[in-house]
């Protein structure tokens, strides 16, 4: 990679915020509490922060509800949020990864449920990327959310 090819991380954006919790329903509130605090630290506008919370909550809900078949209670959900510069503004990149075991072939009902929160995420975020792991049951799913840009402090 030549000099100047990759945009350097802008100073002041700080380190990534990370949380990794068991894939259980109680995790939803803990993720929101942590992310809400982080967004406040970053001076994220209140309305934009609510949209991020709503979108991340849906992604984590999906992971908690569907990533783990009965009898596999050891799954985790990992959320990593990073600020990145975009067009003289900044946006949040949030990655939600479930690391539990997948049912080898999810039934049609599971697919429908899993998509339920997707329209909401798509409306709230600038971009939603879903990377479903490979055929191995432990591959899990990674959802990446890119927020709309907000003004830099």
């Amino acid at each position, binding site marked *: 990679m030549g000099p100047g090819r990759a945009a350097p991380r802008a100073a002041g954006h700080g380190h990534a915020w990370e949380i990794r919790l068991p894939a259980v*329903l*109680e995790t*939803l*509130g803990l993720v*929101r509490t942590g992310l809400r605090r982080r967004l406040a630290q970053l001076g994220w506008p209140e*309305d934009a922060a*609510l*949209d991020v*919370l*709503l979108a991340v*909550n*849906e992604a984590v*809900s999906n992971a*908690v*509800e569907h990533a783990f078949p009965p009898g596999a209670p050891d799954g985790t959900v990992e959320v990593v949020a990073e600020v990145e510069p975009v067009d003289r503004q900044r946006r949040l990149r949030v990655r939600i990864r479930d690391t539990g075991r997948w049912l080898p072939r999810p039934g049609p009902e599971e697919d429908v449920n899993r998509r*339920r*929160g997707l*329209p*909401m995420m798509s*409306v*709230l975020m600038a971009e939603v990327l879903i990377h479903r792991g490979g055929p191995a049951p432990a591959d899990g799913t990674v959802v990446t959310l890119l927020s709309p840009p907000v003004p830099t402090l």
Partner: protein
Amino acid sequence: MVVTVAGEVDMFTAPRVEAAVGRALADPAVDVIVVDLTQVEFLDQAGLSALVTAHRAAQRQDEPLRVVVDHNRPVVRPLEITGLERVLALYYDVAEALGEPRGSGG
């Protein structure tokens, strides 16, 4: 009957909301059910589903379900982006919701 919901409604807590409204629906003495969401700090897809389920059940029983949201953004925003603001009967305050129903075209 007024069902007051406070705090955060998500996949973990939505069943409690559904149960509370369900009890009101099952009570033959209750004719109008008002769900007050003005103290709700977070509402997700699971919470919205609970409201829609209750709304439909109430419609079947011919007992209107009136949802009080005022300008509470954590509730208004998810209703707005899912289009459910046009499905549910929304009110600004409990008194208004307990009063005469507004015109259905309004």
